[in-house]
């Protein structure tokens, strides 16, 4: 099992009140799954995403990623896990404005300690993969929204992580571009990657083959996306 979550709690202290953002969550995700995590705002899906992405530590419970217990890790160990195992794709792209596409994609490799030549080579390959070979020297503000998100996807892929973790990846894009981006995730998944998409849009969630619904800090439902599987079956 790639991800194994047991009785996971995340409690925030807001003034004198305790807010249970996650309240005893159990979740297993296997390699090469394509999971959508859905839920209204306040349902705990962002908190779950932060924990999955090792940006946050649980208050209680266990989160094992590749059999490593994340909850006990120090800040620097978490940084290393994020660097090696997680590829983030954000709603607002989160590219460095001053750096060109190539350099943005290189960044995880910088922190991985990869040498300059090798870094360049792998960043080019990743940009190739998302069809942006001709935009490497462009800065984010010289790229369209869809292109920016593809740079972000290339950045997520460049270090060959275990999980691609996307947070509302189409939230800032029009629907046509959104579909392009979802098609890119599809390809990535087809290449054997594990993709987790956090979204509140049912249309986006329909791309996944498993949908996890959250409500009030708990998992409300966790079902296979039969429609998606049927479509896939019909295509083949």
């Amino acid at each position: 099992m790639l991800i194994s979550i047991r009785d996971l709690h995340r409690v925030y202290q807001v003034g004198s009140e305790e807010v249970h953002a996650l309240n005893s969550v159990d979740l297993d995700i296997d390699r090469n799954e394509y999971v959508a995590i859905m839920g209204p705002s306040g349902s705990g899906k962002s908190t779950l995403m932060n924990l999955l992405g090792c940006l946050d530590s649980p208050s209680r419970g266990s989160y094992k990623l590749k059999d490593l217990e994340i909850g006990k890790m120090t800040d620097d160990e978490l940084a290393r896990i994020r660097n090696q195992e997680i590829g983030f794709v954000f709603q607002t792209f989160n590219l460095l404005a001053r750096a060109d596409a190539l350099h943005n994609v290189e960044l995880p490799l910088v922190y991985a300690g990869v040498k300059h030549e090798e870094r360049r080579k792998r960043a080019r390959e990743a940009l190739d993969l998302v069809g942006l070979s001709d935009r490497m020297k462009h800065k984010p503000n010289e790229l369209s929204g869809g292109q920016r998100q593809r740079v972000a996807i290339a950045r997520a892929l460049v270090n060959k992580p275990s999980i691609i973790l996307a947070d509302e990846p189409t939230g800032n894009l029009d629907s046509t571009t959104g579909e392009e981006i979802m098609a890119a995730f599809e390809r990535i998944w087809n290449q054997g990657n594990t993709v987790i998409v956090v979204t509140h849009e049912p249309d986006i969630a329909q791309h996944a083959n498993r949908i996890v619904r959250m409500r009030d800090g708990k998992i409300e439902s966790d079902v296979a996306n039969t429609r998606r599987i049927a479509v896939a079956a019909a295509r083949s």
Partner: protein
Amino acid sequence: MNLRESTGIALAALRANKLRSFLTLLGTIIGVASVIAVISFVEGMNRFVSEKLLNAGSNVFQVDKFGFITSNDAYLDALRRPDITIDDADALRLTLKHAQMVMAAADDRLRVHYRSKHVDGVNLRGRGPGYDVIDDLTIAEGRHLTDFDDRHRERVCVLGPEIADELFPGMDPIDKEVRIGDQTYRVVGVTKAKGRMLGQSQDRFAVIPVRSFLKFRDERASLTVSIKSADQASLPLALQEARNVLRGRRHLGPGRPDNFGITTADTWMEFYRTLTGGIFVVMIGVASIALVVGGIVIMNIMLVSVTERTREIGIRKALGARRRDILTQFLVEATTLSLTGGVIGIVLGVGLALLVGALSPLPAGVNVPAIVLGIMMSSMVGIFFGSYPAFRAAKLDPIEALRHE
């Protein structure tokens, strides 16, 4: 971490807003520039002074009426002392076993005439034999004064080249008669030029035999006797001998203080060091105030930068930057800032030193240790004042930072 990236970001930020950058770096610039300039001056002066002060050899000391006077009271006391006479000088010359040379000297300042021409403010030097060594004078034309000239109180003189040039343009000065005060002297020699020292020409003088000086110029002049010991080691012996001789001649019993003064090159060097020590202390004060102010401004700018770039820090952390990666990045940026100020300061300081060196007689040279010191100081400022902002950046929570607008 990516050193080139961090320095690049810092330099780009500097270029993006030139006025702000200038104001940011002003403190560091002033601090470093003043250190470089002052060190260059003091160093130049040191070299100059030790060269000039010790040019007659460090094993020369002076005996005179006053010695090294540092207060008005001491001066008034010293005024009541007996004069140093030519007999004292002769006694010293005849009795000192450790002295290689004993030369009596008296000085005045007056006008020298030749026909219708005259030169004002000439340093008239009455000198005994050996003055060429003690005053470090070399003959360019004619001859030096001799023992004979002195013993016979001849009215002959050796001129400094500047006087010779002014009084005898295009003429041979040898054997011409010049009028000094109310006497005429025959020019027997002209010395080689020595140039300027601290803005004073060293070539505006006329030397006459000391006994002629006493006979024709000022009978009651108190002399300064320069004594050169055989070598450095025998200087204290010669000094003690000279004291004993003078005390004996003046019948000073044990316990009574000397009623004459002895000055060595060391006395002057010590005085000079006290002086430059004071300059150094003032400089360190000015520089440290400027550097602290400069450092605080840099800290402020870095705090602004951390706030402005919170989101960037979040992104970097999400992509795997550890605390020390972020810390290093901001430290490198702060150090790049302060080093830029340091380099500008060094250029300014060196430029100032060279400018003053060129426009004034104050010698000043480029001083490599000072430049190294300037670089070290400015990077220390960057590291010291950059660490608080860098630390704040490093411990930002990645989730909060990513959420930051």
